[in-house]
């Protein structure tokens, strides 16, 4: 490796870092003020790229020159900023008071909606934007050619940092934003129109996302996969830098940029893992990132399960329910049974998450990790050991539990949003391994031929097996929730200092909860693998984790029946919408947003609330 190569590689890293920072900076700003983790930030970035790739050529057509180009970039960013305003006014403004998980879910709804809208507006094809006039030619650096546009990008990062710093430190708007970051209510009581302030912040955040996207057009064709690929990296940057810290984001982006530039030389096949490993390492050493602080979860934190009097005839009703479900094969056709099987599997999956979120207050964004581990554990056992289903099930459970033990050991040191992000990182690391370790996992093709043993090969038999395992696991988890162990988890959720002061080893308790929840999700994963006959990395992906969260939240985290209802509703919804229209993401997204607005406590929780209000 000669010096000029190292220098060029470092410059490459700087250019990527700048681009990443500009986008991530908006995410961290919005989080700082509104406390909303905006999943849709990546979508805004994508819209910025599409807008610029469409608008800038048109402007260059009118008048070719650098002015048109840069003006086009800025206008595109402004348009995205206005889109941010629209999102704030129409949706976010209504849910600032909602539990943060619901906010997250709502923004994921926006992701779905924008995915379809972008295709409708800009067309499905990638759009290659023009290059910047005057910056087409490379410059010679140490005898190597380097694109001059990248030099502009390298300068743009620090320029944005300086501009944001100026706005935050030297303007009244910035002072107000920083004040609102800490205490919104007090800002309002001092006569500041916080609605306007939030709208302004969303504008700024969306503008930066749009700018980040628009600046990419000379390098990247605008494409429909941009949203989710950038959002994961933005999360890493904001978390590593410390949530809400702009300088932290800058530092994190610099490190990630260099890590990627030089990482591809050393580990050309594991680029995905490297970034998330960095995040895991940083959080293991500094639980709140470089410049972050512990998140104080205030009154908006979703409350989980609380003590209540056992429902009259609850056992009877549950028994009747189970018997009715067991009779389904008598009336249902095979397809209905297949759907019912999947609903049960996902109900179990969501229910295992309930142990973490509803009981332990541990918000996991990466629950797919355990679901996927369970599925892969079974599939790998079938594939490599030729084991039958009966042996593969315990193997899946074991792998999921082991994974949960390992991940949990890191995660329980954290709290709040950092915990959530660490679980996300863990799931992403596993995803990357499943995706890239082709020899063992089959890569994106996954593993097929994972079919159940003969005695449960029939639809009805497998359905009954799923029902039995689901009921047993749910009853077991319910037992745990009511046991001293579950109470101790709840105690740690209600008040960590109090729990510690009465001698509860909070971290160990949570670690055990992770293992139990992981094992539960692992069973669900194994069941799913055999019901489908195959596994692939998408089982470990972000959408799977979001599915679990959606089902849990739709159902309601305060109740035991919630996740069961949530999984049924989401599944049926998807099943009904998908055949009707190729715009199913739009409708699914709107449905999720609608439900967040209408059922702020989840279906079961809200209905129970109505019942109690009437009583």
């Amino acid at each position, binding site marked *: 490796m000669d010096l000029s190569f190292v220098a060029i590689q470092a410059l490459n890293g700087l250019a990527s870092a700048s681009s990443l920072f500009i986008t991530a900076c908006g995410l961290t700003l919005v989080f700082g003020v509104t406390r909303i983790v905006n999943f849709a930030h990546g979508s805004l970035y994508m819209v910025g790229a599409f807008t610029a790739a469409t608008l800038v050529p048109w402007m260059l057509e009118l008048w070719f020159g650098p002015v048109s180009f840069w003006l086009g970039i800025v206008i595109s960013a402004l348009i995205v900023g206005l889109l941010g305003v629209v999102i704030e006014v129409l949706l976010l403004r209504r849910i600032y008071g909602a539990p943060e998980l619901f906010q997250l879910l709502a923004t994921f709804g926006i992701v779905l909606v924008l995915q379809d809208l972008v295709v409708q507006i800009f067309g499905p094809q990638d759009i290659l934007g023009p290059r910047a006039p005057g910056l087409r030619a490379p410059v010679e650096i140490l005898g190597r050619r380097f694109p001059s546009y990248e030099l502009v990008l390298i300068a743009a990062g620090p320029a944005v940092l300086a501009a944001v710093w100026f706005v935050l430190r030297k303007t009244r708007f910035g002072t107000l934003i920083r004040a609102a970051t800490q205490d919104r209510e007090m800002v309002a009581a001092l006569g500041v129109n916080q609605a306007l302030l939030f709208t302004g912040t969303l504008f700024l955040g969306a503008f930066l996302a749009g700018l980040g996207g628009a600046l990419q057009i000379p390098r990247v*064709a605008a494409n429909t996969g941009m949203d989710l690929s950038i959002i994961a990296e933005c999360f890493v940057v904001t978390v590593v830098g410390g949530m809400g810290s702009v300088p932290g984001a800058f530092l994190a982006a610099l490190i990630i940029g260099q890590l990627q530039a030089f990482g591809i030389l050393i580990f050309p096949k594991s680029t995905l893992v490297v970034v998330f490993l960095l995040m895991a390492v940083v959080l293991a050493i500094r639980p709140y990132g470089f410049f972050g602080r512990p998140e104080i979860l205030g009154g908006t934190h979703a409350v989980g399960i609380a003590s209540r009097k056992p429902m009259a005839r609850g056992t009877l009703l549950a028994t009747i329910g189970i018997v009715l479900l067991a009779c389904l094969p008598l009336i249902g056709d095979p397809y209905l049974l297949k759907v019912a099987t999947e609903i049960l599997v996902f109900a179990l999956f969501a229910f295992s998450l309930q142990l973490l979120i509803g009981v332990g207050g541990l918000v996991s964004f990466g629950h797919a990790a355990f679901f996927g581990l369970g599925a892969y554990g079974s599939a790998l056992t079938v594939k490599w050991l030729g084991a039958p289903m009966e042996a593969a099930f315990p193997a899946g459970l074991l792998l999921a539990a082991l994974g949960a033990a390992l991940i949990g050991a890191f995660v329980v040191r954290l709290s709040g949003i950092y915990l959530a992000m660490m679980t996300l990182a863990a799931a992403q690391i596993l995803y990357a391994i499943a995706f890239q370790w082709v020899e063992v996992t089959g890569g994106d093709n996954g593993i097929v031929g994972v079919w159940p043993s003969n005695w449960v090969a029939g639809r009805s038999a497998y359905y009954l097996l799923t029902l039995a395992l689901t009921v047993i696991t749910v009853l077991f988890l319910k037992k745990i929730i009511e046991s001293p162990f579950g109470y101790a988890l709840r105690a740690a959720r209600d008040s960590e200092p109090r729990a510690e002061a009465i001698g509860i080893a909070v971290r160990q308790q949570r670690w055990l909860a992770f293992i139990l929840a992981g094992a539960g999700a692992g069973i669900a994963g194994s069941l799913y693998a055999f019901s489908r006959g195959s596994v692939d990395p998408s089982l470990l992906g972000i959408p799977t984790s979001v599915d679990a969260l959606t089902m849990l939240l739709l159902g309601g985290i305060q109740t035991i029946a919630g996740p069961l209802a949530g999984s049924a509703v989401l599944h049926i919804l998807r099943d009904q919408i998908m055949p009707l229209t190729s715009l199913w993401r739009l409708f699914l997204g709107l449905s999720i947003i609608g439900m967040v607005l209408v059922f702020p406590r989840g279906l079961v929780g809200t209905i129970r609330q109505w019942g109690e209000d009437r009583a």
Partner: protein
Amino acid sequence: MAKTSMTGWLALGVALALGASAAQAQTAPIKIGELNSYAKQAAFTVPYRDGWRLAVEEINAKGGVLGRPIEVISRDDGGTTGDATRVADELVTREGVSLLFGSFLSNVGVAMADYANQKKIVYIAAEPLTDAITMAQGNRYTFRIRPNNFMQVGMLVEQAKASGAKRWAIVAPNYEYGQSAAAVFKRLIKESVPGAEIVAEQYPALGKIEAGATVSALEQAKPDGIFNVTFGPDLTQFVREGNTRGLFEGKTVLSLLTGEPEWLLPLKDEVPEGWIVTGYPWDEITEPKHKAFVDAYRAKYNDTPRLGSLLGYMVLYMIRDTIERAGSTDTDAIIKALEDAKFDTVAGTVTMRGIDNQSSMGAWVGKLVLKGKSGGMSDWKYNDGTSYMPSEAEVKAARKD
């Protein structure tokens, strides 16, 4: 006499009654299930849908098959294996379709192949490329039209041999398609070019290429030739960075699929001229049958046909021929009619090889060239797939059935 006539009348009545219901059965459409990632991969799947819809119209206008019209029941497969197999199940159990075709992504294709095997229903994969569908995961019920990875890489290696380049660099997306293409290339280049060596390998994450860093790293290895498997947004980024930094100057570049309109259209006027690619020079193919297809397609959709359009169009005609030859929609009959059958398609004569259910459809190999405002192919040649297919021994070693 009276008795006879009585019997006669009865017989006539029964015959009429049966005839009527038979006639009704004959006009009821033949249901075929189709699924693809129409929402998530719209750029590729919508032209494909346009292709098969055109074929359905044409076929039904000419009276359908076996005297019955064809009805394609189409679903979105959600782009995931889970959704795909569930949707397939709905098509089979609820809609009662006779066979399935479709899907774009390789992993969905593999899962569908396995599904077909399990449920004993024919599945025709038009687009997915992974070798697994006809090799390791191949089965009696799964058929594929498009030339697979192995075949297309083989065609490019032939060109590599001609170029004389020895020091090769590989850039491929880090997922199954990219890795298996790279592995095949490594194997074949060493077999066919003595003294060839691989001097650099880069495997950027799919959709997340660090193009600048990747180009620098490849450049550092000073290769004579580059084998590219990246596609989509990764490809455009790679091309731009590579052009700016002069990576491709004086080097032989082989690139999979880049000559397909799907990939050329987004590149606009920035096509890397001189790259040797597999692709689809739709505008230059002069066979009358193909021209008729292009004209009909453009007339109906006012759009450029993509390779997907061609595949969609082809697959439906092949399904029609199969059902006609099978004389029924019975699965075993369909399989029998498909295996080792010859089809006269718009892309020429294609044989469905029986041992691996891989069609002998070939690919067009040529050089990229700028034609006006977008790229096209020049010096192209259609390579029939037959001579590039994996040998029977290889197939037997890989397949479990």
